[in-house]
């Protein structure tokens, strides 16, 4: 299954992902309309900042990992939180209703679940559903720098390996130069 992956080194902290996610999870599905809605629609992706010092802010896009096993599912007393056949962990469209008890909010190790009014005004646990109406989730689609990616796990790892390989190939040529030099000496 494709998942959301993050390359924090490419995040500029513009929060376009938060806006796109909020709009996708609104009634109107466009920014102007979404801004007028009551209750206001809610994001399910977050960009957090770690202030390390002057001009050193680490920017981290935080997305749901759709864990397996998922602590939120395990903690859901009414069993509203479930895993779809596609592997998406969600409390929408299941057999049981969310009762907004907040157990999943407490159990999520990444803090990816909000307890807030849904579009119908009913308070419930709101979390990433990987945008079932879209081919690519809104956050990954909107990210202007490619910091959030929607890929198969193997493909993401492959891309990481390729980048690392480029670095290693540079190191290799450096190493060869060094060896040649030392032999010449």
């Amino acid at each position: 299954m494709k998942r959301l992956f993050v390359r924090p080194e490419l995040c500029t902290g513009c929060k376009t992902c938060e806006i796109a996610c909020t709009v996708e999870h609104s009634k109107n599905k466009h920014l102007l309309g979404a801004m007028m809605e009551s209750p206001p629609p809610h994001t399910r992706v977050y960009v957090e900042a770690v202030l390390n010092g002057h001009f050193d802010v680490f920017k981290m896009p935080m997305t749901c990992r759709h864990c397996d096993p998922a602590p939120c599912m395990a903690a859901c007393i009414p069993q509203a939180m479930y895993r779809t056949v596609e592997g998406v962990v969600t409390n929408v469209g299941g057999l049981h209703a969310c009762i907004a008890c907040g157990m999943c909010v407490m159990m999520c190790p990444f803090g990816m679940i909000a307890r807030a009014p849904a579009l119908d005004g009913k308070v419930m646990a709101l979390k990433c559903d990987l945008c079932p109406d879209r081919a690519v989730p809104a956050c990954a689609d909107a990210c202007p720098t490619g910091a959030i990616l929607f890929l198969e796990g193997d493909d993401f790892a492959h891309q990481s390996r390729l980048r690392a390989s480029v670095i290693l190939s540079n190191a290799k040529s450096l190493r060869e130069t060094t060896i040649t030099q030392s032999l010449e000496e």
Partner: protein
Amino acid sequence: MERSISPDSILLLKTAQTAGVTTAWDRYEAQLPQCGFGETGLCCRHCLQGPCRIDPFGVSGPKYGICGASADVIVARGLARSIAGGTSSHSAHAKHLAHTMLKFSRGEAPDYGIKDKDKFYAVLQRVGITRDGKSDEELAGELAQLALDEFSEREEPPVWLKTTITPARMQKFEQLGLVPPGLDSAVAEVMHRTTNGVDADAVNILLGAIKCAVGDYTGMYLATDLSDILFGTPAPVMARANLGTLKENAVNIAVHGHNPVLSEVIVAQAELMRDEAIAAGAPEGINLVGICCTGLEVMMRHGIPSATNSLSQELAILTGALDAAVVDYQCIMPSLPMVASHYHTAIITTMSIAKITGAHHLEFDEKHAGQKAQEIIRLAIEAFKKRDPAKVNIPPVVNDAWAGMSAETIVKVLALVDPEDPLKPLLDNIVNGNILGVCLFAGCNDVKITQDKTFVELVKALVAENVLILCTGCAAGSFARHGLLTPAATEKYAGPGLKAVLTALGQAAGLGGPLPLALHTGSCVDNTRAASIATALANKLGVDVSALPVVATAPEAAMEKAVSIGTWAVAMGLPTHVGVVPPVTGSPLVVQVLTQTAKDLFGGYFIVEPDPQTAAAKLVAALKERRAGLGI
């Protein structure tokens, strides 16, 4: 990260936390992370097709805006517009003074006059207005009109430019096409050439921006001249600083903003209304304090204490003892009424172009200045009656601060050593190495870095290397807050050469000790006072300013005004340090022009360095390079 190293700020930030009052520091944290496109200058909103953003990593995102503008063009356009913003601010300030002078000349501003006739006649002579037995009112009318004409477009170069810089610099500006045809038209030109589909050459845009900044210099020079004529040229005055200058037993009124047109009249009227305040239950009468540059204007002319400055303005309300903040314009936080809603403080806006929702607006006009000032003070006295004594929490922090070191004052002090040739003692001590060079400290506080930390650490490092320090605006406010505008600070921190010079001058001036460690040269609009000293030195030596061991720094810059000032400082030939990273890093070309190419063109260039010790080393190296160039 610490929020401030100023003890009064630290105490009141704790109060804010306990009382649940939100300040600029909290709002900054709520903004984090800030958008990287904005941080790097790579977001363009100059047309309705945008916003366009360039991928700063150049990985997979766009390299061009919809119109085809590159990262270089977008960054240069953004910088140019921020310089236009800064220039507009100083120009508006200057025009306000010119209009006041014009009204005075027509008998329509009875509360104003010519306070410093020497400066008045000197300026008339410099700008080429002959006296011919005309009355002061007539001459003031002519001067004000000439000043206002500077802002429109004409064929002649601006008078306040060509008469105040070295001939070599003027020639350079003419050669490079950097003489603005008028000060407002310089701003309009930047707005035009940075709109969609006009200038798309980053270097050309930067030159246009520098032309605008030259206009900024001109407007600032003009503003300082007119202020001195109307309100007096600052002379040395001992004042005090920090929020401990608020008094429990007085009606505390803060004048805040930038222009002395209103605050001068408040100072005069407050004296007359002392009994009203006492009758309202304030045994110590009215206690005026200053915030930001309006505060520095009345500090250097009347010794009014400087309570705090731009970044920490909200904290004055948190003392629970501020009865009114009377504001004009620039650097006034829209949050003031929100903070004041937790207390009794009246926030009084006074300018038609600068209202704040939630504040009390009492429109000021020069014709009824005295009467308006009285109404404002009465509002403060009314607010005082509502003060909750349980909330009063004045931090016990007060520092002495010498102010009023205008260019004229500095020359007068030097003349005590050598009446024939006042600049000689300064030059001699630069040549013999007692003074390594001169550094002008200017600029703001910036919420992104610990308040005052870079100011204080940088100045201590520079004076240890015998650098003579001038300071303006929030730099002066910061030094005042930390007791650095005192002879005691000279004893403690100055290097041996600098200490010897400041002691000799202080004794000649009859202070019985050294001059203060840093010379408070004025508010932020007064940076041309320092430029005028540099120009006088250069003219005396027959060189250009770019040859002199003179540098500038805005270690904690925040506002567009600081960007325009920094840019003209570079254009005038000064190596200019900035301690925060401006939104230009998205374009390596723009960074290179500002930090390297500028040196070939102007002699001046930007040094961006957040670390105070490294910055000090770089500024000292720049001064030594200049000294080597002069063969000293």
